């Protein structure tokens, strides 16, 4: 059951009905069962792994709390738990990569990177005493298996979530039509980003990256920009769906994206992009490594370590590590030249807060991020070199000679894609200015509000890339 499938929508409505109908004290059971059913529907055998990971960290947490007075024992428990979780992650995700293909990886259990990171975060929080070890196993099991976020995050924190999964909290969750509506609207926005935009852009991106040698430089550059949007819409779309579903069940999940392409620096970008992961690395890796407290050189080293590992987290491949490394390098170089940049601004009387300067910084950041995404998307060095080679042969007019309509999308689809991207940019700018579009719509009168909701649903249903996928060529009438 994929998150963009009809079954999942039906599942949500069924669980929601049960959740709000059953006695309040059973709400936690409903969430737990829903989580296990949803995860089990991906692959029932990996449900066992999830349960085992849950029990292991739960017990570790309890044990750790008892031994907190004994620093050595506590440290050992934390280390064993973290290493065990990382070992499981490594076994499933990286064994093939680290052994150079000598050992075949098992099929990667979906969401494993997310729930194991949440478990690791929990045990460290218990060690740091920022949260108490959870005594209620059901609350803890829901925390690990909460179905909206288990597949692709956000990587939530125990401090934020555990209290919401306690029976006493859930008993207070009422059928609040406004909250539920807001949740559904957020889900719609996520589905729009994922199904209408990301999956549509993917058609062009896959076509070009599939055979870059057949495309001109301008098309390859355009595609790299499109990929930059694709990965954003895909991931942010999923996060919005997850946040929206959680809201429908009265649970608040942290924001994961905040208009990342409006960032004015790479550091700013990482404060806006996959916030739950970058903050996880900051809290559980960068700070324990010493952060910026141990001198400039160590700070830069820490940044590089964090970003290389962040790259590795995204996938078991050199391109991901390279991608992380490039982002680390961007940050280090940015920090090194920061003073020079400031002096230059003073010298040229440029106001750093001016709109124009911010705009230029945003564009430069976007370009840097965009270039790094190419590393993220390529499958091998050969493809990367081919793409770089294409950059030398840029003929701008090929963007307007209809070539773009031969990349898997017809004219109407290309126009929809472009207008969709513009719409998301506008919404991001408004959000940046503190204007929440969904709230504005919610405050409108019914005869304005409802058609907007209906229209959005219909656009997603009609134009979303879901279902079997109609290919007119298969339906050309063959009499014979």
């Amino acid at each position, binding site marked *: 059951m994929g998150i963009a499938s009809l079954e999942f929508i039906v599942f949500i409505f069924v669980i929601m009905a049960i959740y709000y109908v059953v006695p309040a004290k059973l709400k936690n059971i409903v969430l737990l069962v829903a989580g296990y059913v949803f995860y089990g529907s991906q692959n029932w055998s990996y449900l066992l792994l999830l349960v085992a990971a849950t029990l292991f960290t739960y017990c570790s947490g309890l044990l750790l709390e008892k031994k907190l007075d004994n620093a050595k024992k506590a440290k050992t428990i934390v280390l064993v738990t973290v290493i065990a979780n990382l070992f499981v992650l490594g076994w499933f995700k990286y064994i093939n990569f680290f052994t150079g293909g000598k050992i075949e990886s098992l099929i990667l259990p979906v969401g494993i990177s997310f729930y194991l990171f949440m478990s690791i975060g929990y045990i460290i929080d218990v060690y740091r005493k920022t949260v108490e070890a959870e005594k209620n196993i059901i609350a803890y099991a829901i925390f690990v298996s909460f179905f909206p976020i288990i597949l692709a995050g956000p990587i939530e924190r125990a401090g934020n979530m555990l209290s919401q999964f306690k029976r006493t909290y859930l008993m207070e969750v009422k059928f609040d039509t406004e909250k539920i509506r807001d949740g559904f609207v957020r889900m719609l926005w996520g589905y729009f980003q994922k199904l209408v935009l990301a999956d549509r852009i993917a058609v062009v991106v896959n076509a070009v990256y599939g055979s870059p040698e057949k495309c001109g430089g301008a098309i390859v550059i355009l595609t790299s920009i499109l990929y930059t949007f694709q990965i954003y819409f895909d991931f942010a779309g999923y996060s919005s769906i997850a946040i929206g579903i959680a809201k429908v069940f009265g649970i608040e999940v942290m924001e994961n994206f905040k208009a990342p392409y409006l960032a004015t620096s790479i550091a700013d970008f990482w404060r806006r992009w996959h916030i739950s992961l970058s903050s996880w690395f900051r809290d559980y890796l960068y700070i324990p490594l010493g952060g910026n407290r141990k001198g400039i050189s160590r700070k830069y080293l820490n940044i590089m370590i964090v970003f290389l590992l962040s790259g590795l987290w995204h996938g078991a491949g050199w391109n991901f590590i390279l991608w992380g490394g490039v982002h680390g390098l961007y940050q280090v170089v940015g920090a090194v030249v920061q003073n020079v940049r400031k002096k230059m601004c003073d010298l040229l009387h440029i106001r750093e807060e001016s709109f124009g300067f911010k705009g230029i910084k945003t564009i430069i950041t976007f370009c840097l991020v965009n270039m790094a995404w190419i590393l993220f998307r390529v499958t091998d060095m050969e493809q990367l070199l081919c793409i770089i080679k294409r950059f030398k042969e840029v003929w701008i007019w090929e963007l307007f000679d209809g070539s773009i309509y031969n990349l898997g999308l017809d004219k109407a689809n290309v126009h929809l894609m472009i207008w969709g991207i513009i719409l998301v940019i506008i919404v991001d700018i408004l959000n940046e200015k503190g204007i929440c579009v969904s709230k504005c719509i919610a405050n409108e009168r019914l005869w304005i509000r409802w058609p907007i909701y209906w229209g959005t649903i219909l656009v997603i249903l009609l134009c979303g890339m879901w279902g079997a996928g109609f290919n007119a060529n298969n339906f050309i009438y063959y*009499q014979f």
Partner: protein
Amino acid sequence: MEEVLMQNKKKKLYSAIKIFCFFFLLLVFIIGAGKITKRKESMKKYADFVELADQVDVLFFGSSHVMNSINPVQLFLEYGITGYNMGKSGGKVPESYWAFMNALDYCEPKCVVVDVWALDKDFHYVDTRNEGESATIDETAISFLHDSLDYLPLSKNKIAAVNDLIEDKETRKEFLWDFVLYHDRWSSLKEEDFRPEMYKANSHYDLGSFTGYEVVPNLNIFQVDKVDDVLPEDTASVQYLHKILDECEKRGIKAVITFFPLSESYELDWMATNTAEKIAMERGVPFLNMLPHDSQTVIQYKTDMFDSIHVNANGMRKVTSSVGAYLHEVLELEDHREDPEYIAWEEKAGQWQSKEVGKLLDETNLYIKLEMILNLNANAIIFLRGKSPAFQDSLVQEFLMQLSGTTSILEAADCNGPYLLVRTINDDEVEVQEYVGEMQIESMETILGDTNYIAMQPFSAIYVDGNQEYNYLDMEKNYESSVQIMILGQEGEIMQQFYVRPEWNGSK
């Protein structure tokens, strides 16, 4: 306190009504969007069936062979039998069974005709075939199944058909709610998608049949020698044939098994027909076998095939006439032509005839033009000028022999013409006047009136009613034309003068 409770109750009721209205209207919009984006091919083919189902006496099931071989409009015009062509592209017997079962939800036919092409196929799923066939074929097969199932609303039989014919569970969904598939059509919608009345107007189906007009100039005719073997085992197709016959028996429906003509046939086809013959004998049902090359006299491969395995309009007319005669004479299906309750069938026939006349007038290919004149029994004058290359064209010769019912064209070919054929239909009787070689005839009676015909190799003329100012044969602008054809109306009025361009060289 009570007031607050009341207010809360009211608020909850108001919310419930609002939620209901929102989702109800949303559902209406989604259903509407589904109707608009739905591919209309299936509706085009079956819309008339749904409309006329309660008057249908005979249903034809099978593959594209059936679609191309049986014209229910002609069946009605010739015998007054009301039938519908349920054939589907690539349709094998299991699909015929389910098409039959679903059709029974709409009608109670008196007779069912089942074609048993591909009786050797031992699978009932259309999406997963025998090994070795490519994925493309699967997708095509799925699309064909959409053509035959999309018109049906969700029903017990439709669900059973989908479950039995489609193995992949994901693919099943697109049959049970086709919006899953067709929502993608949003970018290619046409006017007819928004206007239901246009489905039928733009349909290329005639009571479910599909007419192929092409003629294959160098058709490969290949028939293996007869073999006596039957299929080695009960294939899935054989089992489903039995299921159809069982259902017919249960409901008192007469069944007929057929095997329609192929210009290329192989051992397997013989084995299939032998098996069908055996089953027909055992079950006491007739088997109309049109496969054998030597003994089948229904069609002439050379002029009647669209391609090696499908008959064209000419072949369709002949097969329909043959099957119709059997249904009328042996199975005694009723003639509804005089029945006022069947006026809708008269209307459909009228629409078909005017559509066909339009196609005849629009046609520019000589072979197809001749085929259509033959097919529509149109009044026509056909003139081949002296030394026309058409004399040496075997297909033209064949068509003219069929049009005239004589071999005079061969004599004309020997002397290099000219040749004139005046073909008139009077009360369904064909009247033929043929003139071969150079000659001068005065005052002969033709459909045009009192006609003088001058035939010389370099110059020919047709003058009517003594008016020598107007030559019905164009000897000026179209002097070089190889063939001149005049299509005439009922009263002899000229509907079209058609000239074959001088450089025409037929099938060469």
